[in-house]
């Protein structure tokens, strides 16, 4: 198949970060923070027609300890913001966030007393998806943008040293 013909003699020389980021980007596990109507379109992105599994995001793990990518879908109120932040803090580094739908970008059509006017007031967001609700193909486009970001080793939320830059981290034990 493709990889063997590319490898040629049986080995390939590249940087450690490239390989690790390539593995990471093709198996991003999304954590669906499905709050309101956009959650329906997120479910449809996993459903048979717009299959998200072909991008590697096979399962939606509802536990934050096993995920890389948090998709915030739906209007975030002040009461819910504490919960979203708590779950974001529980995810292991490195982590990426997709803000889906108009309500997460800027409050959407709900300009009222209880809605947070944009989740980037308390969360670092990597990709914004516009729409009310955005179509599932729009969400898949956002996922591909996040994959490009992962390959480059960029992450808004985590310190860059933890994303693919292993020079300082791997220590050889002095015996």
């Amino acid at each position, binding site marked *: 198949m493709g990889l063997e013909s590319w490898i040629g003699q049986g080995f390939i020389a590249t940087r450690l970060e490239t390989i690790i980021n390539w593995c990471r980007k093709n198996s991003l596990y999304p954590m669906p923070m499905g709050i309101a109507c956009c959650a329906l379109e997120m479910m449809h992105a996993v459903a048979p027609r717009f299959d998200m599994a072909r991008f590697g995001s096979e399962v939606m793990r509802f536990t934050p300890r096993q995920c890389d990518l948090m998709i915030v879908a739906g209007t975030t109120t002040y009461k819910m913001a504490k919960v979203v932040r708590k779950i974001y803090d529980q995810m292991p580094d490195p982590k990426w966030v997709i803000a889906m739908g108009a309500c997460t970008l800027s409050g959407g059509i709900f300009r009222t*007393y209880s809605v947070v006017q944009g989740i980037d007031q308390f969360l670092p967001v990597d990709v914004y998806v516009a729409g009310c609700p955005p179509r599932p193909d729009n969400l898949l486009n956002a996922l591909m943008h996040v994959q490009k970001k992962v390959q480059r080793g960029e992450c808004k939320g985590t310190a860059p040293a933890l994303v693919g830059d292993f020079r300082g981290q791997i220590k050889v034990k002095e015996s």
Partner: protein
Amino acid sequence: MEELNEKVVRKLKNKFGDIFLNVQEFRGELTITLPKEYIIQVSKFLKEDEELSFNLLSDLCGIDMNTKENRFGVIYNLYSLKNKHRIRLKIFASEGDKVPSVTSVWKTANWHERETYDMFGIIFDGHPDLRRMYMPEEYEYHPLRKDFPLMGISGSLQLPE
């Protein structure tokens, strides 16, 4: 529909006499305004009477009329499963008054009254568990009052981090 409306008014007037402040009909719906002290007796009568049997409380809401006297109103939308008939009861209360709670008559009024308390600040006397429904417990204001701005009072709700 008209005969049912008239029957309700007639039976209520027979039983309670002249306590009703206003009886009017608009678009086929009957609205009866009464003083707030009689609400439990009238509701019990309407529910338990064999002919009328208004056993489903569809909706209970508050309304802010923005007048000095009798500022808040509480509106009860009743439905009778037997006669397939709807009527409406209305009571008024000023700021700081306590309204008797109808949870002893219809259990469904429990959450509706909590929501009305949360949004308007009307205190229901005799409610088993009066606490806020939608806004967080520590919130000090009542959002649906007419003097509360749409965007809220800044600093009243905190964001994490």
